[in-house]
Each structure stands twice: as structure tokens, then as C-alpha cells.
């Protein structure tokens, strides 16, 4: 090997370049690595030259169109000495050959992360790199982490390497990338940190075999113990153990050999390959080889290590969860100081559980007590469980998929309910609630409320912008669909969009309150308090605003002071809805909140006007009432809840716009919406 010590494989100061850096995985891993190690000088991706991988504000990694361009454009002192190959399998050989041919003298190590590289290509890579004295790890390695130097290549440690990898005295060498991470976490529980974590890859040919890695670790003074995770296949261990015996290898090893199941079932190995290589490739044979090397019995949980003998060469563990106890026992026996004082024995620690009735029937041995969520996760949990409101969606490709509708060839369905059943038995408003929330209404009166909002949204007279849109279109001689577009194109965040803002405002206030059922009169207590808190905040904001001259944020959907001098000021459409609620003895927390807030703001002098709760607020309150329990149960998203009031307005207004179009198309004369030139005013640009 070119490397002479383990730090030659990876250390601080290395300059790393990444192939196919813009790929899904490479891009993500590179960003995290740059945060952790700050060792990536650039990358290349076919046809993506000139882009940059954004790491954070003001920090980015340049992307070149190929490796040669990277060498041309980067200053010589930044030329990479380590290369990570993330190219697709068919491009691995070409990319690697280009690197080797262009800068064999600079590049020391190549890490091939790509999976599914053919064994023939692997053999060629080995041959090519051997000739040029370049070390290769992989293929299908997850990478390497040098914890002492706080650097990594590849994805070892996932998106939070610091959470698992704490500097220490154990070097992990594993055929499984996942096990590097998992074993590091177990070791830390035993007060042992990690010096190096190395994923060798587990393709048929492991291009840096175990013996070569052990030769590098051999001279590393910081490594006190080596932890191995071994799987069946190949004679890597046989060769390594033979050599270790010959040189009297001095670092103790704890090994876990997995895969005895494969011996019996021939599940995952190319058996013929193993046969051609002879004995020593199967898990059971590897176990024998290690036990023979250690000359020490395998670790048995709960039992003391052999008193008469020191496990100077180490020993084998038979269950992975024995690792912390075993490593601790080894350190004690060999009088090695642990890296950290803490010791957290591994145990069943359920983070979340609800064994329901089953718990009562179980034997005491199987009843698991409540667990403790570790501090590092607790914060995230409390955010997700308490503060994060509504459903969190995992994105997926929705091109040919829909939850909202389906058709099995016989029946179109809305969220699984047959359209024909809805037509026969349910109202339009029932279907609308189902169609927009994904769930049927939970109270009968909700359909009536929705009906009222739809009618209320029809029109606010021919002067409204959206009505004008339809009329202008009719006046220009357009078809109905163009007029519909014109109507919908003339509503927006200011005209019609206030309902969404009101919803956002209400969610902000009540999301973290104890409001569970907005129709329950007992919720009034919560509403009263929310009004007081809100007014208090506004009062403060108003005061601040006076001092700083910055206008304070207004409450959405309170306004339209038509009857300025009245004691009570109402939007007549909102009144109809409120009266329906009162008449039917339905308490509505959000309506109550809005009404109280308008009155209190006047009383506390936050405003001089008697503000009306407008119809947009009414629409928002009604739909938020419908959605509230779904949000609470995390069945729908906050974004959907915000969008619905606007869509409710748009749906009603589309019908109103259609009325304007039909009327105007019948009675209007062509171009009658035109404004004569004489009525248009020319303005000089203010200077």
C-alpha cells in the first residue's frame, strides 16, 4: 500500500474531490461532510460544470464538468489527494481511469462508494491502482471517518457524525457500513470513543483487505483496541490472522462474525466462488479461525473473563449487544484506561410504547418498563409531538397517483367513497368537505355552515375586482372558460386571500393552547385567555410602533368599518352565519375569539374604529373549525388548512363570476367595459 499509517488513509488537511457530486446521495453526503470536516475542494459531474453545491450561506463547493477541468481551474495547492467515487456503476471505471491517468502523482487514495460495480471492473481497478501506487477502498464502501481529526469521507456517521463518533481509542473495521455506525454508538455507551471507523465494503473483492488495514493500524499509537465486524466470503481473515500470528500483532481485537445463517441456507453467497477458494470463507470457519488465533474463550455475557489468562489478543463476542460489556471487561483486564468515565449498559429502552391489553397478559419478564428518550432526541420529540402542528408529509412521486380520487373502472371515488353514493345520499357540501380534507364532516351542522360560506362568497357587487374580471372578459367577446379564468385570475392574496391569513393567525394563537374541540362551550375559557393575551401583545406592539415608527402587524379580516360610528359593527354576511350558530346553540371558539378581539381592541384603544369581523374571517373560522380535530390528530397538514379558506372563497366567487359573465354576455354591448381615453389620466413620473 501507498499508505504507511492509518492516518495516511485520511487525516486533517486532506483535499477531497467527489465524482458525480450532484447526484442525489453524493450531494447530500457532501454537504454534511463539508459541515463536519471541511475537506472537500470540489467535485465533478457530467454536464453540470459551473454549478455550486450550497453548503450554507456564503459557503459552497464548485462543480466542474469533469476531473480535468477540476485540475485546470483549481489552484495547484487545492489539487485533491483523496477521491470519492459516487459515479453510477457503468461510469466508475471511466471516472477512476481518468483520475489515475491525470494525476497519479497527487492522488493517494480512492474511495469507491458505488454499489453494483461488476467484479471484473473491481479487479481492473485494483490492477490499475496497484500499478500507479494508489490505494483503493471499496467498492461499495460507506467511507472512512478519522474521529480524532474530525474528518470523514463518505457517509459514515450519517447526517450527524458527531452524535455517534466521539474521539477515543477503538478503531472499527467493518464489512457492513451500517455496523460501523451502530458499533460506535454501543462503544460510546461503554465509555469508549472511536479513533477510526472504516467500512471496507462487502463486494466479492474487497480491494483493501483486512491485512492491509491492520498493517496501517499496527503503528497507530492511539488505537488501543480493534473492533471487527466480519461477514462470510473471501479469505481475508485467514490471510490477516496468519500474518498477525507471524508478527505477533499486539493490538487486542474484539470480533463479531455474522452470517452463520448463510452457511446453512446458502442465502447470499456465491457458493461456487467460496468452494474454489477453499476452506475459510464461511462464517463458521471464520469463527474457528478467530477463536484459534485468540486462544481465549468467546465472551459470555454476565460471566467474568478467564481469571488465569489475559486476553492479550482479544476475543470473540457472540451477540452484538455484548459489545459494551465485553469491551469494558477487556479494558479492565488489560488495564487500559477508558476514554470516558460514563458507563451506560445496554438495555431495552422503548422510546414509545403502548402494549394495550396485551401488557396485562404478559409474563413479568416480558413487560418492558417505560423507557427514557435520550436528551439528544428529547428536544426533537417534544417539537414534533407538541409544537409541530398538523400532519407532516413525506414527499413522493405523485405523477400517476392520487389520494383524492380514484376510478376502478366502474366507480369514480372521492377519498375512497363512491361518487354515486355521495350523489344519492349526501349533499354537495358533505362531498366538498370530504374532497378537501380527506375526511367526512364530523358534525352535521358543518355542511350548513359551508353552504353559507359558499353563497356568501358569490359576490360583493359588480364593482368587485373578480366580478370586473368576468365582465371585462365578456365585454371582450370571450368564451365562458376565459371569463372563469379572468375571475379566478383577479382574486389573490389581497382579494380573497385574507381567509388564509386569518387561518394562519388563528393557528398561531391556538396551536399550542389546550383547545381540543372548538365547538365545546367549555373552550370559552381558553378563548377568553387567548383574547387577553393577544390584546396584551398588540398593545405592546402598538407602543413599540409609536416609539420606532414601524407599523405593527394588523389582525387579518378585521376591518371594513362601514358603520364607523356605531357601537357595534358587523358584516351582514358574517351576521347570518353567527346568527345560525346562536340559533342552533352552537358554540364556535374561533367566531367567539374574533368577536371578542374586535370589541377588546376598541376598548383597549388599540384601534379607534369599531372593527367588523368580515366574511373572509367567517370563512376562515368555519373551515378551521372543520379542520381542527384533523390537525390535532395530525391527519391533515397546516398548509392544506391554510389553503382551504382561499379555495372556498374561490369556489363561491367562481359561481358569482359566472353569473356576471352570463349577465354581461346577454345584455352588454361589445367593448362596453372600455374606459374612454378622455377619462384616463396621464401622470408625470414623480421626481
Amino acid at each position, binding site marked *: 500500500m501507498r499508505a504507511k499509517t492509518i492516518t495516511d488513509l485520511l487525516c486533517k488537511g486532506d483535499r477531497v474531490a467527489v465524482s458525480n457530486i450532484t447526484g442525489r446521495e453524493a450531494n447530500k453526503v457532501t454537504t454534511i461532510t463539508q459541515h463536519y470536516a471541511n475537506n472537500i475542494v470540489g467535485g465533478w459531474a457530467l454536464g453540470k460544470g459551473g454549478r455550486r453545491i450550497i453548503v450554507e450561506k456564503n459557503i459552497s463547493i464548485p462543480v466542474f464538468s469533469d476531473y480535468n477541468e477540476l485540475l485546470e481551474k483549481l489552484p495547484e495547492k487545492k489539487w485533491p489527494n483523496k477521491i470519492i467515487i459516487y459515479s453510477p456503476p457503468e461510469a466508475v471505471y471511466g471516472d477512476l481511469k481518468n483520475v489515475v491517468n491525470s494525476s497519479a502523482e497527487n492522488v493517494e487514495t480512492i474511495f469507491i462508494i458505488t454499489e453494483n460495480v461488476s467484479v471484473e471492473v473491481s479487479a*481492473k481497478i485494483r490492477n490499475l491502482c496497484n500499478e500507479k501506487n494508489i490505494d483503493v477502498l471499496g467498492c461499495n464502501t460507506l467511507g472512512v471517518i478519522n474521529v480524532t481529526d474530525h474528518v470523514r469521507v463518505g457517509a459514515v456517521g450519517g447526517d450527524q457524525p458527531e452524535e455517534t463518533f466521539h474521539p477515543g481509542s477503538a478503531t472499527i473495521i467493518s464489512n457492513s457500513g*451500517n455496523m460501523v455506525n451502530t458499533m460506535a*454508538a454501543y462503544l460510546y455507551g461503554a465509555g469508549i470513543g472511536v479513533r477510526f471507523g472504516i467500512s471496507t465494503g462487502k463486494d466479492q473483492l474487497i480491494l483493501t483487505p483486512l491485512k492491509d488495514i491492520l498493517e496501517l493500524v499496527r503503528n497507530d499509537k492511539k488505537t488501543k483496541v480493534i473492533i471487527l465486524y466480519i*461477514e462470510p466470503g473471501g479469505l481475508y481473515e485467514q490471510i490477516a490472522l496468519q500474518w498477525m500470528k507471524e508478527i505477533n500483532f499486539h493490538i487486542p481485537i474484539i470480533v463479531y462474525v*455474522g452470517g452463520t445463517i448463510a452457511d446453512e441456507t446458502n442465502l447470499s453467497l456465491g457458493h461456487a466462488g467460496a468452494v*474454489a477458494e477453499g476452506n475459510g470463507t464461511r462464517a463458521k470457519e471464520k469463527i474457528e479461525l478467530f477463536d484459534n488465533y485468540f486462544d481465549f474463550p468467546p465472551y459470555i455475557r454476565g460471566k467474568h473473563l478467564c481469571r488465569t489468562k489475559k486476553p492479550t489478543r482479544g476475543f470473540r463476542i457472540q451477540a452484538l449487544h455484548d459489545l459494551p460489556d465485553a469491551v469494558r471487561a477487556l479494558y479492565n483486564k488489560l488495564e487500559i484506561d477508558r476514554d470516558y468515565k460514563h458507563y451506560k449498559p445496554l438495555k431495552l429502552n422503548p422510546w414509545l410504547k403502548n402494549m394495550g391489553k396485551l401488557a396485562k397478559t404478559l409474563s413479568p419478564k*416480558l413487560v418492558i418498563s417505560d423507557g427514557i428518550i435520550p436528551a439528544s432526541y428529547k428536544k426533537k420529540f417534544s417539537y*414534533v409531538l407538541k409544537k409541530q402542528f398538523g400532519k407532516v408529509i413525506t414527499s413522493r412521486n405523485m405523477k400517476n397517483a392520487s389520494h383524492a380520487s380514484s376510478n376502478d373502472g366502474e366507480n369514480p371515488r372521492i377519498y375512497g367513497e363512491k361518487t354515486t353514493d355521495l350523489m344519492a345520499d349526501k349533499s354537495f357540501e358533505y362531498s366538498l368537505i370530504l374532497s378537501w380534507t380527506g375526511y367526512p364532516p364530523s358534525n352535521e351542522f358543518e355542511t350548513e355552515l359551508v353552504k353559507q360560506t359558499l353563497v356568501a362568497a358569490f359576490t360583493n357587487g359588480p364593482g368587485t375586482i373578480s366580478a370586473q374580471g368576468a365582465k371585462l372578459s365578456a365585454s371582450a367577446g370571450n368564451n365562458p372558460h376565459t371569463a372563469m379564468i379572468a375571475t379566478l385570475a383577479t382574486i389573490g392574496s389581497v382579494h380573497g386571500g385574507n381567509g388564509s391569513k386569518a387561518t394562519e393567525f388563528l393557528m398561531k394563537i391556538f396551536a399550542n393552547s389546550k383547545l381540543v374541540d372548538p365547538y365545546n362551550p367549555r373552550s370559552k375559557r381558553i378563548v377568553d385567555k387567548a383574547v387577553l393575551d393577544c390584546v396584551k401583545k398588540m398593545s405592546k406592539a402598538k407602543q413599540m410602533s409609536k416609539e420606532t415608527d414601524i407599523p405593527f402587524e394588523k389582525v387579518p379580516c378585521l376591518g371594513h368599518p362601514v358603520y364607523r360610528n356605531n357601537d357595534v359593527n358587523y358584516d351582514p354576511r358574517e351576521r347570518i352565519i353567527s346568527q345560525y350558530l346562536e340559533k342552533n346553540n352552537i358554540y364556535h371558539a374561533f367566531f367567539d375569539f374574533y368577536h371578542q378581539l374586535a370589541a377588546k381592541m376598541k376598548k383597549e384603544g388599540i384601534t379607534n374604529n369599531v372593527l367588523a369581523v368580515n366574511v373572509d374571517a367567517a370563512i376562515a373560522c368555519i373551515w378551521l373549525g372543520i379542520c381542527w380535530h384533523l390537525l390535532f390528530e395530525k391527519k391533515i397538514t397546516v398548509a392544506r388548512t391554510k389553503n382551504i379558506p382561499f379555495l372556498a372563497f374561490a369556489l363561491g366567487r367562481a359561481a358569482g363570476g359566472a353569473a356576471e359573465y352570463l349577465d354581461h354576455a346577454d345584455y352588454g354591448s361589445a367593448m362596453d367595459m372600455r374606459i374612454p381615453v378622455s377619462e384616463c389620466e396621464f401622470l408625470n413620473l414623480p421626481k
Partner: protein
Amino acid sequence: MNHQISELTFLKQLAPRFAILTPEFIEWPAQRQRIQNCINKWSAAIAKPDILAGGRGKAGAMVKIDTAKDAIQTLQRLSSLEFKGRMARTSYLVEFIPTTYEVYTAITYDSRFLSPVITISLKGGVDVEQIKDTEKKTFPIDIYKGLDVYQAGDILNSLGCPDKLISPLARAVVNLWDLFITSGMQMCEVNPWRITSENKAVACDFKAVYDQANFKQKNPGFDWPEYPENISEFEEEMNRWNNKSYQGQAHVSDLSGKGILPLLFGGGASTIVIETLIQNNGDPMFLSDFGGNPPYERMYGTADICFKHKLADAKLLLILGGKANNTRIDVTFQAIADALAANAHLRDGRELPVIVGRGGPGLVLGVTAMQRALDELGWPYAIFGPDTPISMVAQYSADLYNYLTFHSQKA
């Protein structure tokens, strides 16, 4: 899955193309007269099943034939032979090549040399495992230069091969190398080469494993022989699904268990968990590895197939993996939770205990999504984080399964 072929495909498709001498053969079914003619012409005939299993000879599945009647009866029987869990595709009659000299050869990739190697023994004709290490030799082959006839001659010479056989054998193994390297194989074996009285090397049995990752095997020049594998519908459907995309892994191997339905992540973790379950009588239904950071729709599809086939009969659902480096737990768990909800009706109202253990990116969102789904189903569950070792979770699951099974039997 790597494609495998055995002697019959070699005889029909590959040997003629690479000028490798082989015995004559007839594939079953064949007319009686044709069989009779061959028996008359050949010094002797052997009936063999076309099956992907070694050790046929020892098991009596290779039968020396004397008459056409024998041949028809035997070929008929062998064509539907089941052996070592494998099933025959068809059967064939092959000419027996008399010899006094048999040679074993295999070409594969070797972990000692990290290159292709050829293994040769002059004690061919028996199972390779029976050949002593001292009687076979393995030589590395330069992947770029390949194997030429002089190198092959030197190797044979070093083994003590009689001079008169070196040339025909060297040419034969070079042809075998050409076949190996131009076809994208991972391993091929001729055992034995039989040397005729005219000093010709005849390949008398063959098997090969192709490397699925090698582009050369994508167009082999013939249709892949379809062996009636004794695999379940579940495995078949999952294999088809796995082959549709490289995104994420969807590997399963049916273990015919009746207890725990395991959705496992990561090769290492899957191995450890299944071993723990088996050691503790957890009776896992299958071995699985669903890691590799699958996107939502891939994971949903994978989980959906598992649930469609296995959820109704499962006694415990185990969703378990180590601390992922790349795989997004929020994405994979949401997909599993959605697939579980969509298939829960298969339980006919019977609750199913669910044990979950995982670590990695997006963990908190992932486990809360899983918790919501399980709460909605009203099934008992326990969810562990990465601070509980997977082997402990697996052991607990096995213990719980055993307890539940024992008590349901008692009831």
C-alpha cells in the same frame, strides 16, 4: 439474482461458440429412434437432469443407460426431479467419454489475489471439495492480459501434467477463459475435462454463475434458461419488484417461517437479526434487506408486497435496522406505516404486536409517523431507538413471539 447455467445450456449455446469440445447429447423429449441411434453410436450414454444443484452423481441422479427403453423412462423421471430444494428444468442424454485421465478447472475471482484465478487439479471427476489442497493449484490471471496458451501450458506443466496432454488441455482452458471473460461471468467450472484416446480434452460437465452487475451478461445471445425454482410467489413478486429499480434494496429469501414478519434494514443488521431470531426460535417468515435509502414509493411497494403475502398469518411484526447512515427513516417509516394501514384489513380485526427499532436521519419524524399509524390501528407496539441494540430487540421479539404462541396454544 445472478443468472446461473449448467451443462445443457453450455452444450447447446456456449461450447460451440468458443470451440470447446463436448460430448454429443440429446435433450428430452426426443424420439425413441433418435435415442436408439445415439445409444448405438456412442460407447455408452448417461442420462442427467438439467438442474442447478451439485452432487447429482452421488445422489443417483446421473444414470448410465443401456437401452432406449431405459433412457425414456429415466429421462422422463429425471426431467421432473427435485433435488436439494431445486427442481429440474428438463433432462438430457449425453455421450459417455471413456478416459483414464480427468482434469478439474475453475475460473473465478479470488480474495487472495484480488484478480481472476484459474484453479486446476489433475484429480478431476470428483467433487472439488474432496480434492486435497496439495493436489490442486490456483494461479492468478492478469485481468488486462488474460490467459494465453503458454501460461496455461506452464501451469499444467508445473502440476506434472503429462507432456502429450499439455497442448490440448492448454488450448481448452484458454478457450474456457475466453468464454468466462467475454460473457461477464463470476465463476465457471468444468469438472471434468476427459482426455480421449486421441488426446482431445472434452468438457464433460459445466456450471457457471454470471455477475449481474456486469454489462456483458445483459445480452448472452440466448434466452436465460428458466428453472422451475422452488420459490414462493412472495419471493417471485419481490424479485420482480427488486429488478425494476436500483433505488433501495428489496431482497427477500423465504424461510417458510410462521412466526415473525421481519422488515429489516441493512445487510449486516439483517444478518444479525435473523440469526438472533432463529437462535431464539423466533421462526422468522423470511430474510429481508430493505436498506439503501429507498424513496417513498419504492419502500411502500416493498412493504405492500410483504404485507399482502404475510400479514394475515404473522404473529408479530418486527421493523428493525441499525443506525442508518443514509436511509431516511421518516420516508421509509411513513411508507411502511401507510402500507400497513392499507393492508391492515387482512388481519380481519385481529391485532398484531409490532416491535420497531431504528436509528438514522429523520428518526423522530419516522417513529412518530409509525406511532400514529399503530395508534390508529389500535395494535400493541414498542418502538426502540438506536440506544437499544438490534440484537436485543430481536431477542425480545423472539421471546414475545414464543410467549404469545405458547399461550395461544394453551388457550
